């Protein structure tokens, strides 16, 4: 299940705070990790940020085409947005501590999203 994969990724990184699986076409968060305490308004905002950063329908707000991955680093937080390579409207939205190992987390998050997508497609 998607939530299990999100929980597994969350548990693997001390600096990982919230993980959300989103549908960019409807701008909706479909599921979050179990321990997420974000309110609905905050999740909606996270999804809207993912839509802006990654773009939709092949078009991005910044760049020549929609991005496959995005990250926003500030002093307080690192937000990572990953688009599924199989289903471009599926995205993983992540809120992390700014001190997280960004390279390691990106690699693990990509693997998680690939697992989620393949599981969804196989109907498991």
């Amino acid at each position: 299940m998607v939530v299990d994969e999100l929980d597994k990724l969350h548990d693997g990184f001390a600096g990982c705070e919230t993980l959300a699986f989103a549908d960019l076409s409807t701008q909706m968060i479909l599921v979050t990790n179990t321990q997420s305490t974000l309110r609905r308004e905050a999740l909606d905002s996270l999804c809207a940020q993912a839509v802006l950063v990654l773009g939709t329908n092949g078009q991005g707000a910044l760049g020549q085409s929609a991005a496959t991955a995005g990250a926003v680093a500030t002093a307080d937080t690192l937000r990572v947005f990953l688009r599924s390579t199989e289903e471009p409207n599926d995205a993983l939205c992540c809120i992390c501590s700014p001190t997280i190992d960004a390279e390691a987390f990106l690699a693990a998050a990509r693997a998680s999203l690939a697992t989620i997508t393949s599981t969804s497609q196989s109907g498991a």
Partner: protein
Amino acid sequence: MSDIDALVATLSTLAGKDGESFAHGARVLSQGGTPEPVAAILNAVDDTVLERLLRLDVDGQQIDLIAAGRRLRGIHAAAGADAATQALFGKVLSREEPDVVTAIGEFLTAQCATAQRVSLQSLPPKPFGNGGERGISAAGLAQLWEVGLTAEALPPMRRFLAANANALTATMHVKDGEMQGLSGDYKTLQTIWNQQVIAFREAHAKFQANADEPALICLEGAIESGDAIALAIEGDDVALISCGPEAMGALLSSWRMIAG
């Protein structure tokens, strides 16, 4: 962290001067390239009167120096050195052997070239050379190695661009609306800047607690070459850059060290 490590870290912090920071009990000499790492190391040598082993941690690489009387006597041991450089370890620096002095300077400079953090622990000395060989003063080495001990730090954006120059395929740097520099194949960046950056920043501001806070926004696969682009914002200092997609994680880490 063990109890002893925790105690060392606490005592080091309590003994520190204002503005100093510590990591795992070691004093941070340079972070994100500020101050310039080799200058910071020489300043640490200049602060060392009694003979000590100065253990440097350069992004996880250990370098042990022997210093005394505000002089660097030499390198006791270090990781990451080739065989020719290792042959210099244990030798006391002398102006009569300029090749050795130059090689040691080049080694330290190379080790610190892209260092995000250099920290120092001052430890009891180990046997090194003959008692009569004093080494070379920090000020003398600064002159020989052409290092400015009091050089002012570059602004964060310039440090960020300099620290990641090897990973960037193009840059466009604008401060207070004035072009500061262009590099690489910047034409695509220029088009994006002219047509999209202002609107994007306005749209993205609502997701930030403070629209003026330093931020690095990276987008992978957003340009036709397959490169990633990133918008780095530090007040009125803004850079639009492109890099290989594999560089995104390293850029984020570098930004945190410099501007975070």
